[in-house]
């Protein structure tokens, strides 16, 4: 508790001057490879739902309206900006931008939605090929996440349990 040490401490701090960064007035550079908000490029997306399967916060929801139309919703709420969706995307349609200034009064502002037209096979007319013809009739591979409540529905068998049309009746095992 000597006096000289306190004076030396004051002299050092005063010698450093004013180190405050004038933040909102001037923008600050971000480091390279900084992971900010993911941006979904809809023109490249093929609708494989690899990003949805890989997201640790279950933030990307997939819903098949019918065989050809698939809705992908990225809600920005729980996203931890980990970048796994961008890593796994086969078409590099997700880019982790460098934007971190995402504050907003409505959380719906971070939402990105894609409605995609899935291309179909020329011969059988389906989007997903089942392992056998019977499996193909059971329509495995369809996704029905709960879009109203924003919940991921994890089904271990991807079968459609509701009747799809009047004259097609599928027997499940």
């Amino acid at each position: 508790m000597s006096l000289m040490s306190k004076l030396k401490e004051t002299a050092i701090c005063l010698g450093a001057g004013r180190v405050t960064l004038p933040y909102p007035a001037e923008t600050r550079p971000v480091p390279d490879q900084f992971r900010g908000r993911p941006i979904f490029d809809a023109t490249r997306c093929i609708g494989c739902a690899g990003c949805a399967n890989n997201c640790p916060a279950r933030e990307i929801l997939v819903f098949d309206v019918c065989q050809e139309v698939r809705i992908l919703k990225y809600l920005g709420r729980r996203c931890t900006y980990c970048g796994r969706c961008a890593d796994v995307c086969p078409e590099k349609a997700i880019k982790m931008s460098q934007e971190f200034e995402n504050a907003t009064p409505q959380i719906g502002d971070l939402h990105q939605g894609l409605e995609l037209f899935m291309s179909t096979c020329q011969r059988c007319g389906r989007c997903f090929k089942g392992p056998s013809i019977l499996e193909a009739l059971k329509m495995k591979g369809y996704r029905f996440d709960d879009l109203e409540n924003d919940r991921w529905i994890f089904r271990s068998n991807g079968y459609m349990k509701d009747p799809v049309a009047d004259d097609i009746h599928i027997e499940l095992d």
Partner: protein
Amino acid sequence: MDSNTLWTIARGALNVVLVLLVAPLCQGILRKLTARIQSRQGPPVLQPYFDLLKLLGKEDIEAGEVPVVQRLVAFLSLASILTVGCLVPLGFASPLNAAGDVILLIYLLTLCSVCTLLAGLAAGSTYSLVGISREMMTMITLEPLLAAALIVGAVHANSLRLESVLAGSLYFGSGLPWSGIIMAVIILLAFQAFVQRIPFDISEAETELMEGPLMEYSGPKLALFKYTQMIKLIIYSAVFISLCVPWGGDAPYGLAFLMFWIKIFAVILLVTLVAATHARYRIDQAIRYFAAMLGTSFFALLLASYGH
């Protein structure tokens, strides 16, 4: 009412307005200076004015054991410290000089500290009670120090009247005034505790995450308490200066006022430097420190009564 009384009332009002206007400015300078010592840009100097105005505009939630006493105490603390503001010379002679003596000054300053105790007690929550027990322990060893300094001055000046004591009376007497010098050094060392700054702001920021006795106050009552703390800085500096650093007080009228306020800003600078570079003491370390100084001040009182 004759013109003398009216004139006194006007001067009293002038004192009150001066103290009310300047206190937040001193607090603002203190915060800005602390920030600069910590190498950062601090809040603007007028920040405490904004704080007080914002607090006056907030809702007043009455929570605590005894809300009536809470209301009383908020006004009482500000009222008592403003009364002291009329008793203490602020660069010019104080208006209520003839109304009281040193005992009244000691009583009113103690009343101001007791208001903090009442505030915590009326709130009644656990953290408040811990805060006031620490404040009580500090007060027991601290108020006698100020009383001893004023009494030493009174003994030297041979009277208890305010205008003779608060005119540098520590240094009266023939030869080298040992007791005066000892008391001046002691008050300088204990000054931080009177104005409730680090390293001795034990009661109200010790439970730093819970703010101590003032925990249950919100809005306008909190504004009054914060105002009282800001004014205490100026009042104690004024008492310290008129007691221990009186030189330059006899210059012609304008210059004396200027010298006084320059001295006040020097004291604030000293308080800031000490507060920014120290850490807070524990309660037992602080009490041991004050007890040592209390012993020395009794020794100085003894010396003073023997004429040294």
